[in-house]
């Protein structure tokens, strides 16, 4: 499987780590960070094929992070992954250019399908 360079942004540390491990097992190259600022810093330095972004971050709200990512590089696909998302959030995120809006808990296979699609588009 092709090496995806992914960034997982989630303040739930164990969840982020575990998801990273599972994606790594599935051939992805994952980086993890636990706050919005960290994520933006990382994104400034590197290119990621995909960002998995939680909404409820301790410093910045997910939509704010999304806006900044999109301002910085509109082509980076971002998938919102939230346990709390409301319809309003969903609409806002989709307007800001999120690739998908997914609820926790999520099926790993479902995520893999989306990753494959993104890769297809990128290629």
């Amino acid at each position: 499987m092709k090496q995806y360079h992914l960034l997982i942004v989630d303040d739930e540390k164990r969840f982020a780590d575990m998801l990273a491990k599972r994606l790594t097992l599935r051939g992805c190259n994952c980086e993890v960070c636990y706050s919005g600022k960290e994520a933006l810093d990382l994104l400034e330095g590197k290119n990621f094929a995909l960002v998995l972004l939680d909404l409820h971050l301790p410093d910045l709200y997910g939509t704010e992070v999304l806006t900044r990512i999109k301002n910085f590089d509109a082509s980076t696909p971002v998938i919102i992954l939230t346990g709390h998302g409301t319809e309003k959030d969903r609409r806002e995120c989709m307007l800001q250019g999120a690739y998908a809006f997914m609820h926790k808990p999520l099926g790993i296979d479902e995520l893999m399908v989306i990753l494959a699609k993104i890769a297809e588009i990128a290629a």
Partner: protein
Amino acid sequence: MMERFRKALKTIRPEFYRQKNKLLNPYYTFSDYRKIWAIGITTLATAALVPLLVVTVIHYRLIEKSVDSELVLRTERLASNARRAMTFFLEERLNALRFTVNEIRYDQLANPDHLTEVLRNLKLGFGGLTDLSVIDYTGIQVAYAGPFKLEGKNYSNQVWFIECQKGNFYVSEIFRGYRDVPHIIIAVKSFRPDGTNFILRATLETERLIQTLSSYKTGAYAEIFLVNRSGIIQTPSKYYGDTFEKISLPIPDYSQRTQAVMERDDQKRSIIMGYAFITTQIADTPFILMVIKQKAGMMAIWLKLRANIQWFVGFGILVILIVVVITCTFLVNKLYLADKAKAETMALMEQNNQLVSIGQLAAGVAHEINNPLALINETAGYVKDLFVIKELYHKDEELIESIDYILEAVERCGRITGQLLGFARKFDVKIQKVNLKDAISDVLIFHNKEAEYRNIKVNVDVPQDMPEIVTDRGKLQQILVNLVNNAFQAVVSGCILEINASLAGPDKVSITISDNGCGMPAENLPKIFEPFFTTKERDKGTGLGLAITYGLVKKLHGDISVESKENEGTTFTVTLPTRIQEVMGENEDSAG
């Protein structure tokens, strides 16, 4: 007959009087409608009737007073006229006697032949005289002309003789005397050249007097008669006693003028009594002229007027009361209906609020559970990955099976939280034209296989001329999917499912989904749209399907109702507006 009357009463009686609405308890309203009704009628009727009655009574009294004073005046006038006639009658005769004694010498008068001649002339000139006699100063009658043989009679100790000696003239009251015929004596004293006096006395028939008086009588209810000053009746009276008996009325006090007063007679009849003390210029008389009018008789016009007033007032009161009652009833009924509608709305709102707050709570719980659930999911997933991908213990099927159980349970939890969130979430209304027939067939595509497999017949009946409705297609389909699912779970093999659509009014359509499956007991029906209410086995349902459906129907500004009989089947009826109004801002949700 009684039954018909009761039926009529029932239709007249307003709704607020008829039934006690369970909703309109003191929790919703403070109004006691019957009390308001009664107060309203009393107040309005009082306000309308009191002035009417006051004005009527004042008017009544005024008329009565003016009629009374008119009657008194008329009676007085009549009495006055009769008095003048009476006075004239007596004066004329007294003057005739005075003329006679002055004109004719005593010795001529003492001659009975001459006296008879004089009597004849007087009868000719004035009439009403019975006899004439000359009495000398000792009281001996010296000459007599007339039908009786009375010569030589001594009158010296008789009242009239003594009175006439004192006062020169005398008018007696009416009496029977020796002859037993009612008559009046008038007497004039004169002097002879030798200085002694004599009296010329005449007896008057009362016939002429009575005739004169009765010529003034007007109408059946008036009478004119004479009494003397001690109240003995002198001329015939119809109502107040026989002649020469005491009058049954009070004797009026002396008055020079003619008077008229309101009185009550011994039989408590209202009368107007006119009276005049008769005095001539020549001599005083013992007579009182009485004019009695019975008020009841005289008041025919007034009575007629009074009857008219009473009719008019009675009719007026009736009309006012009818109008007041109708108005009050109408208004209070309006109030009642408005309050009822309000109470119903409030009850509905309470139910909605209940659903909304349950939904909010559920959403909150779902949100909080999702994060730990995600962690369990990933951890268990990772453990499984370790087994499967890293191929550690991958041969230990029991371990993998256990992990799968965890994942399955997480998935189920996820499904529940997802549904809970869906229930609470307000969806975008994406409004478009929807053909009901197409929408229903779209939904049924998912069930064709199951229907075939379970031998369930599905009948769809949508009229050809059914108009397209403007609504949110997604929600409509979700509603239909939920209800069809529900029905499929309720039926067994060989059952029939009917889906009908029809117009339910100018701007409403109704869709019914009925099955002939297991049905529901009546006590479950009220709870059926509440979240988490389920009759299915524990694993089979979350109890959210119909609650979500209810929420969706409400969002489409529709209504949903259910009818069910155990073991006979269930019918859901969804009523939707043909044209939904988009309400802006309704889709906002609080950030969770």
